[in-house]
């Protein structure tokens, strides 16, 4: 394949990865930014989103597009409810202690994963894409659905940005992130904000999963790799920074696509990890993060 088309394919693949990664990492970043909780179970919310998408489409049957749209609404809602429950039952009772919550979310990771294994089983199950359109380029074909993921992700990111910067809820969230004690002193119900943010973070992961599941199938172990990549993105972008998360997701996703296509996927992972190490050494707050006060 000639260099031009080759690069085009690499970029397309990278954009799809970035789109999903940005949504997922944004959830992780919000939870850390506002609550200072490192949510190790974030990948399992992603997996749960995919598994529920399968359950919804399998239950509804019929037209794949209707099933998919239903999954896009129902699956994040259920995942959000599960996250809310976990927040109320576990994180709140640990007073959001940073060390304790890491251990607790590791526990949560295993609980969700094993429950999925028990009730969903160890198989990878497909979810039909809402539409099957093959974009036929002169050099190769590409899935139209994959490109629609990029568009959907962009819309969702803009919506999240809008909520964070232009609405009262966003203002309250930012105030809590900036200084939770002062926010509480001003009458902001910090614990309710925490609960909402944790659920929102999980829902973003679930949406990302529903978008990706028609091209990668639902499997109970699928949460691990995206979790790792999300941490990489969040560290590079700066914890709690929306702009940083999106830029870092693009950087990691597209470079992963290009390096994977031209060299090897393993090299792409090596380089991403190396970049994280460099960022941690030279700019620990991340590219767009502000240093902790």
């Amino acid at each position: 394949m000639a260099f031009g088309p080759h690069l085009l394919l690499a970029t397309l693949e990278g954009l799809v990865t970035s789109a999903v990664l940005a949504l997922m990492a944004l959830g992780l970043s919000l939870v850390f930014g506002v609550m200072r909780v490192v949510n190790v179970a974030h990948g399992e919310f992603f997996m749960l989103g995919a598994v529920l998408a399968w359950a919804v489409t399998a239950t509804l049957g019929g037209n794949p597009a209707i099933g998919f749209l239903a999954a896009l609404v129902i699956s994040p809602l259920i995942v959000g409810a599960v996250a809310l429950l976990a927040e109320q039952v576990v994180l709140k009772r640990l007073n959001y202690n940073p060390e304790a919550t890491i251990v607790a979310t590791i526990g949560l990771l295993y609980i969700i994963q094993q429950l999925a294994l028990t009730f969903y089983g160890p198989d990878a199950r497909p979810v039909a894409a809402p539409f099957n359109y093959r974009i036929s380029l002169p050099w190769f074909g590409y899935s139209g659905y994959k490109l629609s993921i990029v568009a959907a992700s962009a819309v969702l990111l803009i919506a999240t940005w809008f909520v964070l910067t232009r609405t009262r809820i966003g203002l309250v969230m930012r105030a809590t992130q900036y200084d939770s004690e002062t926010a509480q002193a001003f009458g902001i119900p910090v614990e309710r904000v925490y609960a909402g943010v944790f659920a929102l973070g999980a829902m973003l992961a679930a949406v990302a999963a529903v978008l990706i599941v028609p091209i990668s199938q639902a499997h109970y172990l699928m949460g691990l790799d995206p979790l790792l990549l999300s941490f990489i993105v969040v560290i590079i972008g700066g914890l709690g920074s929306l702009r940083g998360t999106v830029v870092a997701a693009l950087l990691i996703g597209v470079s992963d696509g290009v390096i994977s296509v031209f060299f090897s996927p393993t090299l792409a992972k090596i380089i991403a990890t190396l970049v994280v190490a460099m960022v941690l050494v030279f700019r620990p707050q991340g590219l767009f993060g502000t240093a902790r006060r």
Partner: protein
Amino acid sequence: MSSFIRKSITRRTALKGFGAAAGLVAGPGFVRYSQAQSSEPIRIGFQAHRTGIGASYGRWYERTTNAAVKAVNDAGGINGRQVEVIVEDDGTDPGRGAEVVGKFATQHKVDVAFGTLFSHVVIGSAPAAGENKLPYYVVSEGHHVASTKLNRYVFQPGITDVKSQIQAVAPWIAANAGKKVTQIFPDFAFGYDHRDYLPPALKAQGADVIAQIAIPPTESSFTKYFPQIPADTDVIYHVMVGPAVLTFVKELGEFYGSNRPQLFGFIDSLEAVDINSPGLEFLDGSHFWEGSPRYAQPDDSDAQKAYRAAVGIDENGASVDDPKDVSTAAHMFGCWETLYVIKKAMEDSGYQSRDDAGKLVEATEALTEFAEGPEHPQGPKTFNGKIHQCFGIQNISKLEGGRLNVVHKTSIEDGMYEPEGDYTTQPL
């Protein structure tokens, strides 16, 4: 951190922890078994891939094994003793695999270990079988047993190995599919067998492997690998395993559309996957290797029909209870046949207890032929005791009209090769 610890571990929680630990020790896995008497059942430790990337195979290996054990027991068992299967999940992980084999030997005190499929798990577990002198009958199809690089306690008498399979099907590929072949295979032991043995086998037929693409076994997206396929490829030879196989084929379809090279796949790429899943139309007209045909064939023997009924698969190779639950028919027959080999070897050696493990190994090595029939429904086989490996016929099937039809059967001789070593010279 310290405040967390102080807060959490009270006397009560500590007591609960001790209680739970005590419960675990008393649990079923830790029951001490008394020394097996001759009326006790023969105990077979089944190392199953219940979870991890091999789970679909594991489920069907377990069903096949249960069906075979039932058949053996209904017919009076082995040496008059009933057969009992003890299942342990290895998570399709080599490290846990070795632990499972160790547990079989020291804790469950089984007579033989059995049933492993994934090659990296076999390679990881084989030393544990050797150290414990526990006869270990795998159903893996990797070449590692026949390479004589494992040890004297490891056997593969129920399924042919990849080297033999490739050698048998290569002439058909070169004659019918094309001369320039690009290989796509998983980046671990099983894939390396394909990587290493296909090029010489094709070379002998005047065809060439022009590119080899290794894909990590946990990969979930494949499009990025496809540009490495040279444009002048006649045939893509694909053999993939794991949960993402369906994605692999779908993305290959999106990449090529209707204008694709010939495809020759090992059915491993689609084991346990419904061939009529959306996105797989692109495979129509392509060819597959099958160890044993998934779909019932017009010339199926009575033994084959009885075997399919016993395991519980329908005309389409899916579970009779759930047509969406597609079997791993091309491989799982190996569990059935291996169990009958164990039976034969135990009867030949007058096996009584673990003290007879050496006799059992020698009796297995002395076997030479398995006739086609109810015990060997896939077909006749020969067995080479020096390399602990059986040889049999292979099927090449064409995907047409939504089912796989066998278009060519190789002979046993097509897959024979010179032994690379001799296990029987190793001490018992």
